[in-house]
């Protein structure tokens, strides 16, 4: 057994590249889906029925579709539409589109829970439209929904493992390659499991720290 882990250690360049790919996908998908989700949330809550219905349709579609199926649709569907992307970017776009819907939904839940008197007071002070959203609403929404955003980030990490089927060189893909070449399935996959665990512990720790910081500053 020890020799197996030694082989994994010898291949650490590949393992590291897989780990960095996973973290890269996480960073890109998390940032983009948070930003786009924050833009989508007002659409979800819009009073104009057409916009609200379109946005809700998009969110429901993403929540009904399994991620792997969605990945294949993007992967095979984009070239048909003329857009040819590398596997990594096809995977990243699938992650972004999928998680934008989830982020928008959880931000919407937090938004709807904001106390109305606060918003009325802000309006009384002359905050309208964009500056109202940017300076009053969004900071509150983000601080309230921090734990749930943390959960969604963990979900992004787990979904990134699906991308091995479209040959994206993330962590699971690299470990599968190593175990197939050196016949060390347990050592390879247990290393992957431990690394995923470490990533998620860091995410949970970070989100815990941030929410304590946010709690102190909340009204």
């Amino acid at each position: 057994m020890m020799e197996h882990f030694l082989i994994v250690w010898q291949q650490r360049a590949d393992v590291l590249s897989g780990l960095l790919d996973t973290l890269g996908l996480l960073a890109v998908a998390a940032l983009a889906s948070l930003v786009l989700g924050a833009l989508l949330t007002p659409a979800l809550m819009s009073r104009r029925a057409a916009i609200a219905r379109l946005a809700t349709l998009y969110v429901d579609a993403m929540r009904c579709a399994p991620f792997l199926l969605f990945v294949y649709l993007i992967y095979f569907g984009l070239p048909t539409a003329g857009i040819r992307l590398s596997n990594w970017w096809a995977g990243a776009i699938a992650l972004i589109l999928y998680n934008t819907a989830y982020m928008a939904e959880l931000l919407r839940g937090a938004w709807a829970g904001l106390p109305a008197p606060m918003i009325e007071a802000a309006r009384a002070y002359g905050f309208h439209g964009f500056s109202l959203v940017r300076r009053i609403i969004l900071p509150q929404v983000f601080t309230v929904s921090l734990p749930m955003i943390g959960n969604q980030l963990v979900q992004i990490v787990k979904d990134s493992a699906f991308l091995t089927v479209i040959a994206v060189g993330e962590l699971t893909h690299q470990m599968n390659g190593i175990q197939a070449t050196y016949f060390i399935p347990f050592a390879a996959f247990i290393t992957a499991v431990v690394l995923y665990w470490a990533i998620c512990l860091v995410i949970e720790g970070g989100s815990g720290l941030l929410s304590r910081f946010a709690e102190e500053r909340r009204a």
Partner: protein
Amino acid sequence: MSVRIIRRDPVHSKQRTAVTLFRTCALALIATFGISHAAHAASAEEIKARGYITVATEDDYTPFEFVADGKNTGYDNDLLALVRKKIGVEVKQQVMPWSGILPGVTTGKYDMALSAVLVTDERRKTFDFASPTCEAITFYATKKGSSIKGPDDLVGKVVGAETGSAMLTDLKLFNEELKKKHGGSGIKQIVEYQSYPEAYQDLALGRVDAVANTQISLNSLVKTRPDTFLIGQPIGKPTYIAWAVKKGNTDVLKMVDAALLELRKSGEMYQLQQKWLGASYKDMPQSVN
């Protein structure tokens, strides 16, 4: 009556959770190393008592083994049907992606890899091979109209191959040669696929510039889609394809070898080769170990 009072200790509970996690991990790792033993391959008496051997076959590797209309078919599967009549024990077959087949044999999950396993020196260290089923060389294939006219044109291109395959190893070795020949620049990127159909689709879409596979599989591909694909040149050394058992598993090997050599003598193997592979390889040695 005792009522339980739960004391909540916010400062230390996080430390306690961390310590708990570390302790459990340490215990788990020690337990793992303690009970690590591989499932052993069955001996002849065990097989006779059990009544069957287990084999693993790939699920989509034309023309050797693939699924058509719900049935396992292809050269290896047809050969298995003939071997079943001669071997005297039941053969339980499991179909799965390639990356699980050879590790499945080394961990003792399967008695034999009944698949298009290329015989390489590296593999001879871990496996014993049955009597060969055909000959193979690693080639590359491109999309029709590609700018790649010869092996040296692969410099700076993206090439795909299957995870854990000998064709991938051949490709990597070829890449080293290219780098030596062209002053350090070789293939731009080697993409590993779970199975070849996905690699071929990416080739058709232009995501990869070439795919490395055996000449038999690539010829079969070009035959079905002559307007899309073009076979290139060899990039590996000629070798054989044979079914593989774990090294030292001579009992299963003897049973399978006996059946295969009978099929060779009767000419049935060559007929199948002609049917599926387009050529018959009559000059193969009896053993490639």
